[in-house]
């Protein structure tokens, strides 16, 4: 256990800005071990970029590099992502 470890909700703002959906409640399936859990429960590390790791097997699911002009998002271990339409609409609706 590392003091640097954070939850997936630590990167939620940036991902929501990029994908325009609520990411922390989206369900991700790990390519390595098959575990499915909300992205908010991933273990987040900060290195040269951000790494979101599977809560069960620690495999890197998503990587994020923040440049000035672009955000580089890699999906080394995210096999599938399920976004409930209710969540997408919540993020996108006008109030």
């Amino acid at each position, binding site marked *: 256990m590392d003091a640097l470890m954070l939850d997936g909700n630590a990167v939620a703002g940036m991902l929501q800005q990029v994908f325009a959906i609520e990411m922390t409640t989206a369900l991700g399936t790990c390519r390595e071990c098959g575990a499915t859990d909300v992205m908010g429960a991933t273990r987040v590390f900060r290195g040269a970029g951000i790494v979101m790791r599977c809560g069960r097997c620690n495999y890197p699911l998503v990587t994020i590099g923040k440049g000035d002009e672009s955000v580089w998002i890699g999906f080394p271990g995210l096999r599938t992502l399920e976004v409930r339409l209710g969540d997408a609409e*919540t993020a996108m609706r006008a109030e």
Partner: protein
Amino acid sequence: MAGTAVLGRLTWQVADVIEVASETPRVKTIVFDAPNWTGHRAGQHVDIRLTAEDGYRAERSYSIASAPDGTRIELTVERLDDGEVSPYLTEELRPGDQIELRGPVGGYFVWEPSRNAPVLLVGGGSGVVPLMAMIRARAAAGADIDMRLLFSSRSWEDVIYRDELGHLEGSGLRVIHTLTRSQPPSWTGYARRVDGAMLADIAPSPSAKPRVYVCGPTPFVEAVATALVRIGHDAGAIRTERFGPTGG
């Protein structure tokens, strides 16, 4: 206006500082007005971005302390001695200043008064902030749902929101303090770190299927979550928010 509302949730917006108030010697609450704010849910946070004159930028995330209240948002920030942003927010920022923020963020660590299950909140130090938003939202809704806060602080002087928590207790809200470093002379409460025995005393029974929210420094959250699972709570019902360095 519809276009503005959507933009407000996804991009950086400017907020005005209305007030800066002391909670404890190291902790301040900053009140903002964000004209493009579209509302939030208790437990969510904002990302804050500061830009120096030469373009240098720092970003941090802070939990929203206030219950939803139009365009008004409160953040409660602890000054970290070696911090880069917290000393600025707690010592330099003054009414009339502007900052950029993005949010509200986070659907994972939220609680809404419409939910019926009993609630256990476990906070370590400034980890109480998003939990306080939940307590305030419950009070604003006039709800009487069983909600218990187990709050770990170093000393009585360091207890954030101490008086307000005292006033809000009752009508189904219980506040249990544990003071880990020093206690006032007549203290009869807990005087140690949160552990399985303390949680077993305080928490609703696992059979009541409570919703559990744990927030604070990462080691605290890890220890509490592990202890809760050991005394029979469902890991899937425990939501965590770990405060580590969140600089971007």
